């Protein structure tokens, strides 16, 4: 039941991502999808992955998109004039895609017809978890830093590339409206006595 509560906003929001008309709504719907994905991770018992989703996806990626939309006045609303021209070929591809998806769904798992069948889920119990249970963080750390340590260092290099992106984006000099920056020597040359002055309507001044 909790899964359906979590996944029903996902169904609506996923569709609204492709169809949102206003600028602000087009980033709020992916935020809702990421919230539900994080809750899904909590249901699966992976608490660390859920928090990572909240911090990285919503806190970094969605905020970055929001700044891009806010700063550049990008018009999100578009006119769907030519979408139906895609329909023959893409419809066939979509139908093949979903036909292959339905191989994993037998008649027993979709309760379209309410048959009283005892369905067993694909989960089998590990008894090692009852002796000493590892948290999600312990499991990930046990593998990431020992066996997959080289693989762990590669995303750090990729993050370095994204840091360089952030620097390049603000140092772009040849823009139409020039990027504002401060001249350090001019800042230091301003003296207090010449800059700040009293107005004549000040009651303190004679």
């Amino acid at each position, binding site marked *: 039941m*909790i*899964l359906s509560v979590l*996944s029903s906003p*996902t*169904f609506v929001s*996923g*569709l609204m*991502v*492709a169809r949102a008309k206003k600028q602000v709504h*087009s980033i709020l719907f*992916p935020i809702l*999808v*990421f919230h539900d*994905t994080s809750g*899904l991770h909590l249901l*699966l*018992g*992976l608490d660390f*992955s859920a928090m990572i989703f909240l911090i*990285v*996806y919503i806190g970094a*990626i969605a905020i*970055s*998109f929001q700044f*891009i939309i806010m*700063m*550049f006045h*990008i*018009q*999100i609303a*578009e006119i*769907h004039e030519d*979408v139906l021209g*895609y329909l023959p070929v*893409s419809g066939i591809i979509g139908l093949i*895609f*979903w036909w292959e*998806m339905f191989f*994993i*769904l037998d008649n027993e798992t979709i309760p379209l017809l309410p048959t009283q069948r005892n369905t067993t*889920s*694909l989960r089998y119990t*590990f008894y090692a978890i009852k002796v000493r249970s590892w948290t*999600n963080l312990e*499991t*990930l750390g046990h*593998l*990431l830093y020992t066996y*997959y340590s080289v*693989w762990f260092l*590669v*995303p750090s290099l*990729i*993050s370095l*590339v*994204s840091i360089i*992106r952030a620097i*390049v984006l603000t140092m*772009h000099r040849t*823009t139409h409206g020039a990027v504002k920056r401060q001249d350090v020597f001019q800042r230091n040359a301003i003296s207090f006595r010449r800059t700040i002055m009293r107005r004549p309507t000040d009651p303190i001044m004679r």
Partner: protein
Amino acid sequence: MMLEHILVLSAYLFSIGIYGLITSQNMVRALMCLELILNAVNINFVTFSDFFDSRQLKGNIFSIFVIAIAAAEVAIGSAIVSSIYRTRKSTRINQSTLLNK
């Protein structure tokens, strides 16, 4: 809570992401649908690793790498979008054929 329900959810998000990515005229919306696709792939990996690999969680580890790649790709994609917007003042994908002149 069964395995197939979550897989259907991830397949639905994946197909909605591909639909939005193909039929969007705006670059920012295409990038957001790409995030949706990567999110659906993450759900798929994590679900399979949780149901079948509870001791080692290799799918969970791979989903961490996918999160890192997605963050870097958002960074670089938005840098490209902003530089295109600065020179052309619009972010329509239809206009990319203007380079052919």
